[in-house]
């Protein structure tokens, strides 16, 4: 079949309805044959009750670890040590924690990341909070697991700029690392795979703290204000937020163009044929959100109030923009209530200790 908007041959040989024009929005890519899009009747869906809305936000009971990299305390300790060690960068100046710091909600507080030789990177450093529950990683989804992700920035020339063979040589030259690796990976030694597994294990333990919102979900009606409660209802209804930021971690791990004026094509670098992936980025979670500004993939919005204003405006209208992004018509009170709600997602006891590094 030829490409472009084209005539699709459906049910070849059967006759009169065998030819149908491809519908607008149907993109070709095509070895399988795409037929004509047609309407179907859908039953009207009942709106969720307030109780049902709240049930969708209950915290899970335990952190999930993958079968091929299960949790051990020794692995976590090694991973934490590596995570905070600046010797994982060419200049000995940057660690994972430099850009994903507990001091800034496990980001860096900058609009965009800062890499090797102070180079300003293209996107904001994403938080690692709740990465254990993630499905796909990086703003554009180019990493399929935390283990895969962990080694990327170390090697990237604009980030930590340290080739793996040099990294392994460095770690093997630091005597105190040997027993840490032996405890975490008995008999298997210092390897790139073990470094990735250890860092990923530690990252999975970075889970958002119990926030006022959680207390409210669990039944404490006084845990959040009436304004925040109104904001929660708006979040799940008129403001359309929960379509992408639904669930206890407040992300669908999916990709959307939210109408930001940016040249960055995002997920389309991986899936260039799909229009909706142009300018699409992975939905970030909203936990600990007040510690995590500035916001968006490039840090272009500085406050939660301005974030809500962006969504209320609908942003740039273009073919790739998500169908869920459109002018919302929120009142000043509604916008204020939404921000009040968002502030309840930050816990008051979310901190960590920094390890003493091996010598």
């Amino acid at each position, binding site marked *: 079949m030829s490409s472009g908007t084209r005539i699709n041959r*459906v*049910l070849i040989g*059967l*006759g*009169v*309805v*065998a030819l149908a024009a491809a*519908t607008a*929005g*149907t*993109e*070709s*890519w*095509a*070895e*399988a*044959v*795409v*037929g*004509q*899009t*047609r*309407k*179907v*009747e*859908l039953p009207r*869906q009942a709106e969720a009750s307030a109780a049902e809305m709240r049930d969708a936000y209950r915290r899970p009971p335990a952190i999930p670890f993958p079968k091929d990299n299960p949790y051990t305390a020794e692995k976590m300790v090694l991973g934490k040590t590596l995570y905070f060690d600046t010797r994982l960068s060419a200049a000995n100046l940057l660690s994972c924690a430099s850009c994903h710091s507990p001091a800034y909600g496990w980001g860096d507080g900058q609009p965009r990341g800062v890499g090797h030789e102070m180079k300003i990177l293209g996107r904001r450093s994403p938080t690692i909070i709740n990465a254990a529950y993630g*499905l*796909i990683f990086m703003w554009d*989804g180019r990493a399929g697991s935390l283990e895969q992700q962990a080694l990327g920035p170390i090697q990237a020339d604009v980030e930590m700029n340290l080739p793996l063979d040099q990294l392994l040589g460095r770690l093997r030259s630091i005597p105190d690392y040997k027993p840490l690796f032996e405890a975490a990976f008995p008999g298997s030694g210092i390897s790139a795979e073990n470094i990735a597994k250890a860092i990923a294990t530690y990252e999975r333990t970075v889970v958002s703290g119990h926030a006022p919102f959680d207390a409210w979900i669990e039944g404490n009606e006084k845990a959040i204000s009436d304004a925040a409660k109104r904001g929660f209802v708006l979040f799940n209804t008129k403001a359309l937020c929960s*379509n992408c930021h639904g669930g206890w971690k407040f992300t*669908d*791990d*999916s*990709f*959307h163009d939210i109408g930001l004026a940016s040249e960055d094509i995002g*997920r389309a670098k991986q*899936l260039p*044929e*799909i*229009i*909706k*992936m142009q300018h*699409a980025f992975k939905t970030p979670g909203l936990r600990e959100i007040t510690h995590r500004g500035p916001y968006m993939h490039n840090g272009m919005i500085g406050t939660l109030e301005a974030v809500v204003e962006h969504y209320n405006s609908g942003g740039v209208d273009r073919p790739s923009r*998500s*169908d*869920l992004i459109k002018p919302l018509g929120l009142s000043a009170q509604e916008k204020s209530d939404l921000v009040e709600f968002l502030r309840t997602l930050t816990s008051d006891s979310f901190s960590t200790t920094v390890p003493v590094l091996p010598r």
Partner: protein
Amino acid sequence: MHTLKISMLVAFLSGSAVAVAAETAVRQKGRLFTPNEITVKKGESLLFVNDDNITHNVYSASTGNQFNLGAITPGNSTPVTFKNAGNVDIFCAIHPSMKMSLKVTE
């Protein structure tokens, strides 16, 4: 898993006969492909039905059966006919948690 067969009545040009072609419907409600494992014969079709409340994409990059349905809004369905035998991995680009496996046999 429940499988829905949708039949299309197709009139011959002569008007003297009616043939029935079956498509297996793959629904998308709740951000899930249902069913998510399916086998069809070469030349048969799946009908991708967006019975969810949000827009979905459906695509496959599997050699021999590539396709991309762009954006399918709720209440729309699109048939895809598979011409080559093989295993086909199908995804929603917007929602990577949506994935299904198709086997196309000779």
